[in-house]
């Protein structure tokens, strides 16, 4: 344990309290406010050993079989964007949660809340997209439900998916498995999805070809299962981006991650769009990427496995685990200094200053 932790850090570890009277958009951004809401409200009432780890999936044992179980609600505006739509997002997002828990996705359920007035053609497009994504991911939708709400109350369409997966016997993942010296690997470019959606909303009037990377990352995850114990931890960096996900790791493991800014893979157009809007790609959502923490000695092997797959062609090492300072994510800047990469407060907002 390191000494002399500042007041700021102690703040992060205090018992969560929810002071807000109303829900605002900040609660849904995936950062500190979301976490606070989950810990102070949901866990308080619903807490149990399966839920408390707050992993991407719950792991349960049925006889001698280990299963992973997860759910995700999908709300996105606009419904359709370059590279995907709410349908592909719903399938891939949930499949990916199963994959990073070290499991093979088996079945999905899908519950639809449709707003009165939604065009049937749009719904058909969304469902076709889901079917396509399910086929590509090797899963079936085994259960479903549909409800319709009055005009003005539904945001067009929301989809909630849940999935069950079979945990692979070879792996044993968790923040407690991570060791100093381990390497942090990402499977490809950062920020594609979040920027694609932000730009598709249209109010920023930017013209650029950025596509969401929405995809099932199960094949990427599976290619790493052979590493056995040397594969320590897997995550998909969705809301809140790489920064938020790694902060969750350092907080849960009590270790430190140091990132190399020069190694972070970002597409030119994504970097340029972020530059214009004053947004940091580290905080932008990804929907088809994998973060893997791997024992140093097997990092090259892991890279080779990932790169063998088209989705992992851009895989690279972006950082390393260190013993301290505890609980922090640091960045070695390309310029030669360093800074802390904090957890996101709310959605990254464009700024002019």
């Amino acid at each position, binding site marked *: 344990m*390191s000494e*002399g*932790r*500042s*007041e*700021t*850090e102690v*703040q992060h570890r205090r018992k969560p309290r929810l*002071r807000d009277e*109303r*829900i*605002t*958009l*900040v609660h849904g951004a995936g950062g*500190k*406010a979301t976490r*606070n809401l989950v810990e102070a409200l949901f866990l308080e009432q619903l807490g149990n050993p399966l839920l408390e780890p707050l992993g991407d999936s719950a792991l349960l044992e049925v006889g001698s079989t280990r299963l992973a179980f997860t759910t995700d609600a999908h709300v996105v505006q606009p419904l359709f964007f370059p590279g995907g739509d709410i349908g592909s997002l719903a399938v891939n997002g949930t499949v990916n949660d199963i994959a990073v828990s070290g499991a093979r996705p088996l079945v999905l359920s899908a519950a639809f809340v449709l707003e009165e007035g939604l065009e049937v053609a749009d719904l058909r497009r969304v469902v076709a997209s889901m079917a396509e994504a399910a086929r590509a991911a090797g899963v079936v939708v085994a259960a479903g439900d549909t409800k319709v709400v009055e005009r003005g109350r539904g945001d067009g369409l929301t989809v909630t998916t849940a999935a069950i997966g079979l945990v692979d016997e070879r792996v044993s993942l968790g923040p407690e498995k991570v060791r100093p010296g381990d390497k942090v690997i990402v499977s490809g470019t950062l920020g594609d999805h979040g920027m694609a959606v932000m730009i598709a909303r249209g*109010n*920023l*009037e*930017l013209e650029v070809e950025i596509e969401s990377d929405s995809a099932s990352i199960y094949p990427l995850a599976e290619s790493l299962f052979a590493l056995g114990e040397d594969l320590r931890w897997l995550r998909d960096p969705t809301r809140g981006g790489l920064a938020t996900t790694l902060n969750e790791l350092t907080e849960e493991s009590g270790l430190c991650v140091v990132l190399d800014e*020069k190694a972070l893979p970002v597409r*030119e157009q994504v*970097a*340029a769009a972020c*530059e214009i*809007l*004053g947004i940091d790609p580290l905080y932008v959502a990804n929907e088809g990427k994998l973060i893997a923490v791997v024992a140093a000695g097997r990092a090259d092997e892991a890279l080779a496995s990932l790169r063998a797959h088209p989705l992992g062609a851009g895989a690279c090492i972006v950082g390393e685990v*260190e013993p*301290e*300072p505890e609980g*922090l994510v*640091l*960045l*070695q*800047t*390309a*310029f*030669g*200094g*360093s*800074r*802390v990469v*904090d957890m996101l*407060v*709310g959605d990254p*907002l*464009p*700024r*002019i*200053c």
Partner: protein
Amino acid sequence: MRYIDEFRSGELASALQSELEQAMPSGRELALMEVCGGHTHAIYKHGIDELLPQGLELVHGPGCPVCVIPVGRVDDAVALALEPNVIFTTFGDMMRVPGSKGSLLDARSRGADVRMVYSPLDALELARANPEREVIFFAIGFETTAPSTAVTLLQARAQGIANFSVFCNHVTIGPPLKAIIDAPELRLDGLIAPGHVSAVTGSRVYDFIAAEYGRPVVVAGFEPLDILQSMLMLVRQLAAGRAEVENQYTRVVREQGNPRALEAIEQTMELRDSFEWRGLGSIPDSGLRLREELADWDAERRYEVPGVSVPDHKACQCGQVLRGIVKPWECKVFGKACTPESPIGTCMVSSEGACAAYYHYGRSRPKRGTVAT
């Protein structure tokens, strides 16, 4: 990206760092103020503060147009946003700034139609596309941004777009700088001047600082190499006992500034007698308002705004931080009652505020292998 990547090259960082060390006058401690919030942000984002020589200290200035907007004006903005039939447009920067009854984001959760725009021209376009709605644009910024609001107003008038108005909170750079340098408690040896404000005003606007107060000023660009080179130029002046206004950002800034931009401001706006600055009190001739001829496009004249001056939270020390007297971590509520999730003052909520930069980029935390400062 051209004109960005070359000026971020880490290869030259060590060379500049070495030059800076060698240029430091021996035995002296120097305090340099980076006036602009954008500079504060860039310094901590790239970790430039770690590359500074011993004895060189940075003092953060008031050049954050978001940070200096007083609580009362935010309340006015929220009141405007809650007016019926209004589409209230704003830059992203202002969305989370708390007023005494919540922020614009909170107003949205109460039903206000608050929309983020990248440009005032986009707000004007919204007015054109929605003739049955009233569009208000929340104008903030120093002289960098005022010309854009000005041109937008001229276009609104020329095109007869009546359902558009501006809530003007533009401020000027000269008066607050003078107010700060006049403060007796402040030890300041030189100033790093804001490059983009200067692109509009020209570098002459800082002449009084060198001439009357004997402090050197360097107009700086925003990339890491620009910032380090500017510090080098300042330190060299100080070592040689000079006090001049120099321009590091020569690729953008000229001595006379941008005449067309200044003219646009002149045509549409005039100085208020005084304007209240968060933490700095009322400063004469520091705020801009729309001219009488543009009254039809002035949100303050078209709507009733509360116009109440709301004192800052008792515990808030933003004023002292903005004047460079107190460092963010020296503020009693920094990181405790005042955090980015629950900000008390704008220095914490604005992405370029000194407190937000410190908190976010972790200057208050122990560095690897060192003791917490």
